[in-house]
């Protein structure tokens, strides 16, 4: 097994990109990642393309080949992967596997969505699923987790709001964030209700956008300035046991534990985390699964500012999905983009001082009260 390195990252700001097509956005992000890595496109010997909505919205297939050929990358194996909100990070998992095995020296992952279109409704767990047909939309899943967490642990609306306030405060320091105007807890709780107790400012918006990473072997990394070590890549699907404990998310705990084990690290070793704050309650649940606090104490952790920049374990210094917007194919890659910038100490006013260990965490898909996928990636400089 070779060690795996992150050689370059690229992304375009996530926004409503009304005039751009997906292949062009993804091509730009990929070109930026290659440029950042200093690696010639001709050396890429495996490519992954991640998108969750492209086939559904555009009836388009094998989009990855179109994206890579924009960069002159042809002939090599290219894989189109879909894994709901973890589509991008699942691509990273496969690329890391290929490099660890020596099946690729340089592998790329590109992901993106063009989803800000009228046909796009709320995300759900698949149109033919019974849950979907009974009216389950993704915000409702998390709202029900929130209600249970409040009932079991006394988590408060103000604690949840604190997550949104913190992430927006971080976003004000991040030119790549889509939403960067500071907000108060009052703003959060007074924003339009989505699914009780979640209000609009507690739910990440969708976005158009693309991001890309270049991964490489230790041999190639030696020639590459600023390459970071990928210390762990973990991916677990759900266990779907019935009943699910919706206040203690087994799949989340299991994946985090696996990543720590693979990296030989523990929660206290982390300098920063980018986690899947698709909803405020999600970030609170992830604190607990990541072992940043005891089960049930996630709300308190946020409210006390411990996960804010300047606190002991900054979470989502980028502003997170709540500020960036969430194009599922690109989200997992954008999280790694932020880790790279932080671990290279190029994050400017939002820099976590001396950051040397970062973790990116992503979850996606809803099934039987569980998640269909959870990924955790740990980087060190």
């Amino acid at each position: 097994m070779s060690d795996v390195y992150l050689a370059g990252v690229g992304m375009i700001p996530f926004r409503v990109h009304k005039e751009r097509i997906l292949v062009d956005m993804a091509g730009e992000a990929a070109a930026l990642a290659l440029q950042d890595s200093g690696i010639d496109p001709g050396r890429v010997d495996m490519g992954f393309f991640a998108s969750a909505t492209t086939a559904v919205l555009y009836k388009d297939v094998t989009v990855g080949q179109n994206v890579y050929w924009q960069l002159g990358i042809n002939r090599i194996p290219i894989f189109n992967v879909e894994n709901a909100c973890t589509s991008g990070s699942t691509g990273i998992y496969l690329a890391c596997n290929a490099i660890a095995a020596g099946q690729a020296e340089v592998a790329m992952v590109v992901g993106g969505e063009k989803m800000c279109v009228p046909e796009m409704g709320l995300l759900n767990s698949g149109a033919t699923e019974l849950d979907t047909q009974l009216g389950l939309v993704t915000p409702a899943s998390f709202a029900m987790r929130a209600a249970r967490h409040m009932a079991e642990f006394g988590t408060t609306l103000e604690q949840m709001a604190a997550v949104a306030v913190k992430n927006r405060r971080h976003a004000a320091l991040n030119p790549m964030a889509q939403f960067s105007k500071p907000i108060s807890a009052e703003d959060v709780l007074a924003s339009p209700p989505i699914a009780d107790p979640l209000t609009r400012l507690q739910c990440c918006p969708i976005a158009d956008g693309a991001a890309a990473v270049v991964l490489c072997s230790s041999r190639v990394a030696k020639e590459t300035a600023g390459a970071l070590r990928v210390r762990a890549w973990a991916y677990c699907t759900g266990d779907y046991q019935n009943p699910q404990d919706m206040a203690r998310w087994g799949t989340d705990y299991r994946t985090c534990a696996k990543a720590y084990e693979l990296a030989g690290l523990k929660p206290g070793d982390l300098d920063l985390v980018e986690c899947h704050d698709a909803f405020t309650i999600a970030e609170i649940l992830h604190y607990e699964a990541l072992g940043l606090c005891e089960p049930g104490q996630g709300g308190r952790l946020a409210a006390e500012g411990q996960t804010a920049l300047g606190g002991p374990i900054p979470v989502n210094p980028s502003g997170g999905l709540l500020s960036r917007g969430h194009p599922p194919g690109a989200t997992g890659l954008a999280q790694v983009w932020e880790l790279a910038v932080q671990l290279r100490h190029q994050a400017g006013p939002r820099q976590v001082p001396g950051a040397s260990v970062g973790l990116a965490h992503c979850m996606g898909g809803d099934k039987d009260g569980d998640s269909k996928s959870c990924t955790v990636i740990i980087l060190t400089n």
Partner: protein
Amino acid sequence: MQADRDQQCQPVVPGIFRASSGGQGLELVGGHCPACHRYYFPRPPRCPYCLGQVEEQGLGATGTLYTYTVVRVRPPYGLPSPYALGYVDLDGNGLRVLGLLAPESLDKLEIGMRLRLAVGQLGCDVGGAPCLRPYFEPAPPHPSQGMQPDV
């Protein structure tokens, strides 16, 4: 009249509830694996634990509300706005299932409350035709249960 209209509607998904004539004996219908003694809702094509055949199994009509939400964005499938969803711990089989909650119960919802199954025209199917969906409505406390919500 409600009943008349209901009879012309089809269930949103076939086979997930049943009732004898007049609405008596209404219950959710799922599956049971005779080899593994496990219950399922909905009934899967095969048992995940033994790959064997799963028998059709009535799952009763009562349970306790584990968690819930009131959805206030534009509803899918022509559901009322707002509408409520919850996970319900069914009596007698240990299953925690997703269900719609009665539209008229939105301000009475409380974790731990007792619920009883109902079926009515609620929203439309994928094609836009009105259809029957199962939902849970508030029920009197379980005889064997104290007054404390199960939290």
